[in-house]
């Protein structure tokens, strides 16, 4: 497999000559991979997708597709399938004609085209809808047609720009699995843009977290969640408890961080020496109530709020001067004594408390 099927090489993009929307982007995408560009709005992810599709040109740098520089190739010659945010189905054409469009411009004979269209429609389970107009379809069905249309001409690469944004929650979740399965069955390379982290975590092989025109972290979903490399990623992906402090000692793969008159042990990720400011990130599910003695961080706090969530309870605790500390307590008979205002002991392992940049 080609490790550098898509390659962004030092790509800059500016619209007005004053602000860089994309800064020095370096990104390699492997053939057959499902890569998601995730980030808040205005982080440059859609711009990157548009540059790849050919609707925007890089201000500096070059994009390679399968080893070929593509900046000077117009969109219609790139052979990249694309699914747009609002589907962009041609409203005056039937589903069949929509799917036939990319085949007709490629001058594929009709019987062969019909076979491809049948195949694409059955892939998204829309057989029998060929003669409908897009306006007669529900949002989910339109979405499937858009996916089928982007795949019908067998592109090597498919781009998806927040394709599920307009669907309701249940439909969105089932479509996530459907797109994932399609990707797995035909092995096409997919670059997917979204601002919905759960979507990204569900579907992707790798996720590129964008912020401020830069890729903050590019890694697999589990690594992204478990091992964020900076505070932005830690805070953007999932829930996160933070403590701001100053490193007072660093040795043997652990560091001591001074917070509100006490010191806690943490895992030094982006701190190098004493006196550095840092922000410690800890996932809510990694802190436990009634900790065992083996844990190297045990502190006492006061329960400020209890919210019942069915399978678990969210508990907000005031600990070490942070009254926004969240705990997720699984609902079991052993944990029934959580009451508002009660003092409890909580603990966590220093490995899970990641000392990141102070931003």
């Amino acid at each position, binding site marked *: 497999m080609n490790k550098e099927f898509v390659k962004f090489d030092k790509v800059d993009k500016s619209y007005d000559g004053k602000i860089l929307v994309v800064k020095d982007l370096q990104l390699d995408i492997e053939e057959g991979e499902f890569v998601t560009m995730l980030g808040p709005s205005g982080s440059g992810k859609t711009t990157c997708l548009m540059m790849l599709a050919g609707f925007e040109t890089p201000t500096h740098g070059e994009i390679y597709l399968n080893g070929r520089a593509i900046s000077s190739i117009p969109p*219609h010659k790139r052979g990249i399938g694309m699914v747009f945010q609002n589907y962009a189905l041609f409203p005056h054409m039937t589903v069949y004609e929509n799917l036939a469009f990319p085949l007709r411009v490629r001058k594929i004979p009709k019987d062969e085209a019909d076979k491809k269209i049948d195949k694409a429609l059955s892939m998204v389970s829309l057989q029998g809808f060929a003669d409908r107009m897009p306006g007669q379809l529900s949002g989910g069905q339109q979405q499937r047609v858009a996916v089928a249309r982007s795949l019908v001409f067998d592109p090597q690469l498919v781009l998806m720009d927040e394709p599920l944004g307009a669907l309701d929650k249940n439909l969105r979740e089932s479509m996530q699995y459907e797109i994932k399965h399609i990707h797995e069955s035909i092995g096409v390379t997919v670059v997917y843009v979204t601002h919905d982290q759960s979507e990204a975590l569900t579907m992707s092989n790798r996720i590129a977290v964008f912020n401020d025109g830069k890729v903050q972290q590019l890694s697999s979903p589990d690594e992204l969640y478990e091992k964020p490399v900076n505070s932005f990623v830690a805070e953007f992906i999932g829930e996160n408890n933070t403590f701001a402090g100053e490193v007072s000692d660093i040795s043997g793969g652990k560091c001591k961080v001074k917070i509100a008159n006490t010191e806690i042990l943490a895992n030094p990720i982006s701190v190098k020496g004493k006196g550095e400011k840092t922000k410690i990130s800890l996932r809510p599910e990694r802190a436990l109530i009634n900790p065992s003695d083996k844990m190297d961080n045990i502190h006492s706090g006061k329960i400020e709020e209890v919210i019942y969530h069915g399978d678990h309870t969210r508990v907000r605790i005031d600990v070490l001067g942070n009254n926004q500390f969240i705990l997720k307590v699984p609902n079991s008979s052993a944990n029934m004594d959580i009451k508002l205002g009660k003092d409890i002991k909580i603990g966590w392992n220093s490995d899970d408390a990641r000392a990141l940049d102070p931003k």
Partner: protein
Amino acid sequence: MSSETQQILTTDGIPLEVSLKKAERRNKIKAFLLVAPLLLFLIITYVFPIGDMLLRSVDDKMVTEMLPKTFKAMEKWDGKELPEEEVFAAFHEDFIKLVEEKREGKLSTQLNYTKNGFKSIIKKLRRKSKNFEEGNYKEQIMAVHKRWANVEYWNAIKRRAPAITGQKYLKGMDMYKNETGKIVSVSEDRRIHRILWLRTLEIAFFVTLFCFLMAYPIAHLLATLPMKYSNLLMICVLLPFWTSLLVRTASWMILLQQQGVVNDFFVGIGLVADDARPEMMYNKTGTYVAMTQILLPFMVLPLYSVMKTISPSLMRAGKSLGGTPIVAFWKVYFPLTIPGIGAGCLLCFILAIGYYITPALVGGASGTLISNQIAFHMKSTLDWSFASAMGLMLLTGVLAIYWVYNKLVGIDNIKLG
């Protein structure tokens, strides 16, 4: 109907349908009262005038009422030989009455429309009729002028007997009913109306075409430019709209005349010689130029409103699927603008077909339209029934175009905004 359908009752036992009607009646009355003033206004200013125009265009009872006894006496006359004494006596009786009421002049005008030459002989008859003796009116009237002894003139009078006539419509198409009652065209050198109708259609068609060719890119630009620039452009499009039509037409006269700005410019850049300045006004060119400019906003606005709703991602989709920009435009963008094109073209064509001021001012002889002819008959010849007939023919033409458009494109495909 079938015994199985059960009537649904409300909790009070009133049938649901009755109850629903009762509940909605108030709203219906309210809604009707709200539109009532407009409805009344439309009836007074639109339905009545058109109805009146229709009546006026076929109305021919003026002569019928002026010569009641004559027409009664003429019923038995076959029109081949001169009528009998009985007819002449009846005519004399009617005529004396008209002279007493001083209405014989109107009769002469009316009869003159049917056949030239009545004016003078009626004048003469009035003078001589004072000294007529009782009895044998045929001899006395025939002695007044030799035309009174001509059977064609009596036939002309008889043709005016019916109270309703379609002859104004025939005249509008350069046709008439001849002595034997057959519908024939007038001789070729006198066919002015057909030329005008064809010219009107031709000018309306080309003005619409020019408007479309110019408006399409402008509308596209308006719909795709960023707000900041598109607002400015929109004002440029609308500015002529806010200027008086007369002023705009007059400014075209300044620009297009032989010593005008455009001609000076052409001479200045050496395109034409100073002594061979082309005539761009008082002919078709002037009408084309000025009307296209004036009707342009009517094409731009419907096109713009439709283009505004077309998502830019559709063109992108077309390109990303492999269509060249031209294919993407032709297969994706253009079909989606058809409702706007239809609305704009229909609007421009209908406005152009009845345009009056501009062709009157810059059209000259070869650039005037049917509407100018209608105005001429309204103001100069005072033949209102002919003007009405042509107005209605114009209206029928517009309705026909509407019908054809509906058949071809479908009227629900129109989008004005």
